């Protein structure tokens, strides 16, 4: 790890929920935002790797239909993904691969490339996103 590279920062957290629309409505009601802030990302939908239903993104949440993403070996866990913004996506991806991780998806979400991995590193579903901004 280069000492010059900024520490990755959590960009958003993907969560598997049973009723995506209801939870999204509650988040909007409690934490605010308008439709433009909370509209589904353009990378969602059937074309998005491994997901049949369009995810909802807003206020740091990414909501995924439970049937799309809930881990078979962790049926009680809502955690579907931890999306970290990294300054050098290719270098970080190389380190993940060297650590034994496997790429699950490589896609563009909300205008930035994201590489999604399995749980090989620390048992966590890590996704790396190009960029340094948390938001």
């Amino acid at each position: 790890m280069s000492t010059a590279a900024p520490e990755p920062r959590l960009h958003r957290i993907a969560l598997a929920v049973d009723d995506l629309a209801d939870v999204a409505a509650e988040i909007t009601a409690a934490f605010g935002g308008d439709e433009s802030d909370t509209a589904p990302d353009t990378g969602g939908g059937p074309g998005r790797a491994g997901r049949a239903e369009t995810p909802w993104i807003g206020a740091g949440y990414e909501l995924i239909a439970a049937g799309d993403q809930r881990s078979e070996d962790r049926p009680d866990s809502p955690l579907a993904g931890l999306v970290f913004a990294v300054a050098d996506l290719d270098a970080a991806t190389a380190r993940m691969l060297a650590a034994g991780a496997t790429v699950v998806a490589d896609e563009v979400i909300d205008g930035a490339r994201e590489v999604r991995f399995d749980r090989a590193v620390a048992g966590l579903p890590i996704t790396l996103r190009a960029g340094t901004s948390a938001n």
Partner: protein
Amino acid sequence: MTTARLDRIAVVVDDLDTATAQLSEVLGLQFVVLEVDAMGLRVAIGESGLELVEKTRDEVDIERVWRGEVASLEVRVDDIDAAVAAMNRIGYEVDHSLVTPGGVQKVQMGHAMGGLPTLLYHVPAGASYVEAVTGRSADQERYEAYTPTFDSPAAS
């Protein structure tokens, strides 16, 4: 309307030292390990937004709000009272709250938002998260005997 954003997550792991070492090696994440004896936990916190939690006893009281491996989903707000009021309006009550040694108030709303363990917190502008939580310099690598102050008997 308060400004709020899901900004941090605490994930339960079986071996905190191994997990922090791996995340440091692979992603460069930096952690400070807190020994939270009052809660039966070791907790690794940092500025990345990812926190790791390891139990130091077989059973701990706070487990009742965990959901699988997710200990808490922490929503950073600019006005904690307004945020709690907003949660109350949509039907969720405070489960318990605590004050960290550095004076950060954390309010656990229990299983809110589709059963997700939702926690509200506020950090004063200009303070790093680690310093705001612990009240001590972030340069110190390891803290011991971290003891939050509970203001609700529900979590004692």
